[in-house]
């Protein structure tokens, strides 16, 4: 648990029709009167589609969509580590810092990223491309060192591999597959 101040940007926010429909479908998975259960998935979609991090404007919008009070959304958004409450770059590099990765070179990977990106953990590069975070065990300890970039796994990291990942991301070619990796695209079994 970390402490956070929420950002307010006074920008209008709204989901696409497709996402609204997915949310509508998702809400049917939970019993009458338990609509609040969709909050975590909706916050994931909000962060992904509405700018990469969660502002008060977005949290209030989510509260109205889910039909709960804003404070119920704030207390959840501040609890979970995957929700970003600070401005982040286009790509969020989350390096695992926990024991099993650490004894397999994870700390050196974090050092290397700080060195080549010229930022400290928690900061964003001046070009707004990369934010570096250190996170706890990602459930990939046997493939250490591990990091996630926008929730995609990168494993068995070496300095050379990091160079390649960064240059690929800089080249920035949005692949078609990226669309299929969005949260809305995951919930395919809707009934």
């Amino acid at each position, binding site marked *: *648990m*970390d402490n956070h101040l929420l950002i307010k940007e006074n920008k209008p926010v709204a989901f696409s029709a497709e996402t609204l429909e997915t949310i509508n479908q998702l809400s049917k*998975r939970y*019993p009458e009167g*338990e609509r*609040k*259960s*969709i*909050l*975590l*998935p909706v*916050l*994931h979609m909000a962060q992904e589609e509405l700018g990469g991090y969660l502002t008060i404007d977005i949290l209030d919008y989510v509260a109205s969509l*889910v039909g*709960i009070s804003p404070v*119920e959304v704030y*207390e*959840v958004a501040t*609890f*979970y*580590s*995957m*929700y970003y409450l600070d401005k982040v770059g286009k790509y969020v590099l989350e390096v695992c*810092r*926990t*024991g*099993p990765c*650490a*004894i*397999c070179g994870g700390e050196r990977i974090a050092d290397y990223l700080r060195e080549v990106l010229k930022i400290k953990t928690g900061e964003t590069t001046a070009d707004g491309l990369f934010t570096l975070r250190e*996170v*706890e*065990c*990602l*459930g*990939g*300890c*046997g*493939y*250490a060192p591990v990091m*996630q970039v926008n*929730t*995609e*796994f990168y494993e068995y990291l070496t300095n050379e591999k990091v160079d390649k990942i960064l240059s690929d991301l800089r080249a920035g070619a949005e692949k078609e597959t990226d669309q*299929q*990796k969005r*949260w809305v*695209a*995951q*919930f*395919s*079994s809707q*009934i």
Partner: protein
Amino acid sequence: MGSSILLANIGVPGIRNLKAYRASGGYSAVEKALREMTPAQVAQEVTRSGLRGRGGAGFPTGLKWSFLDRKTDKPRYLVCNADESEPGTFKDRFLMDKIPHLLIEGLILSSYALGVNNCYIYIRGEFKYLVGILEKAIREAHQNRFLGEKILGSDFSLNIFVHPGAGAYICGEETALLESLEGKRGNPRIKPPFPAFKGLYGCPTVVNNVETLATVGPIISMGGEEYAKIGKGKSTGTKLISACGNINNPGVYEIEMGLLLDDFIYSPAYCGGIAKGKKLKAVIPGGSSVPILPADLILRTLNGQKRLMTYESLAEGEFASGTMLGSGGFIVFDEDACIVRNTWNLTRFYRHESCGQCSPCREGTSWMENVLYRLEHGSGKLSDIDLLVRVAKNIEGNTICPLGDAAAWPVASAIRHFRHEFEEHVKNA
């Protein structure tokens, strides 16, 4: 001891899809159960199998199911715990990725046994890619009438839904998980009431681990008694072990319970020995929460018995000289690993993941982290070592949920077995 039950078919091409899964005998346990068995008979086979919870605590699954409140007219729920956040543990991810239908089949059988019509898979949000894989498996199961209304023409109906978390180790604790599934912060609940009476949405609920539930299919196929013949004593069947750290072959292995620890570490079929030809220093065999043991004590018990991969053998000697099988997250340290640094690292993890509800855990984990930080970074005092022991003792048993114990044990056991290393850190500072 190369017994393979859960992972037997992962090499079959296309096994992620229903067609290939079916072709290799998949869903025949569901057909058998729905056509030939009552729900009580399914539950009885699970009891007979001796299956114990694979999430960490090793509680007998059949017994847990028997506690479920069947007297109310409220709906009952089954929740599959796919939070998998215990450092060292990455077996459920492997299983769901390689053979998702095995979990779906287990969920159908378990729901049938428990009289459940809605089942949720709570999966950690970082496993986003698995959400899509599981959802696809569920869709296929619906299309083939293994899910939905009146499954295979029976009176039994079931829906399974995947629900992502959002990054919080504590949500693996079953009551925190239920809070999270209800759209709240993951604060563990005070027990009692237990989930079997008041769980999800205040209704009777069973929470089981992915691996536990995936094992139900094979148990129904072969029969509980046959399953119980595999393994050793009260540790029946097979167990997925996720091996990591300084070994030659990190990865997920299915072992028959009773395998020699020695074989698991050194055989080329498993860990393949210590990486770079180094010597074994220590092992945390069941996820970061269980006690660490030095090489001699992990290979043999204090009275010289070779240790086995079973719940009982690993626990032999209790906390003085034993540990636990836990989740099967097997972390191996070579001679170069620094126990003080690792203990500081893991304590930082527990401090970060404490939900903050109870003071012994919230304050105790930060305090231990601070003390360990100064020991590791050269400004510790000898008295800090006993201070850590005291703080750990004061957390243990004094908290709402077992995260407090999970934070205390690694510190207590590291000092118990490696006190000299802590002392050297002070002397060499």
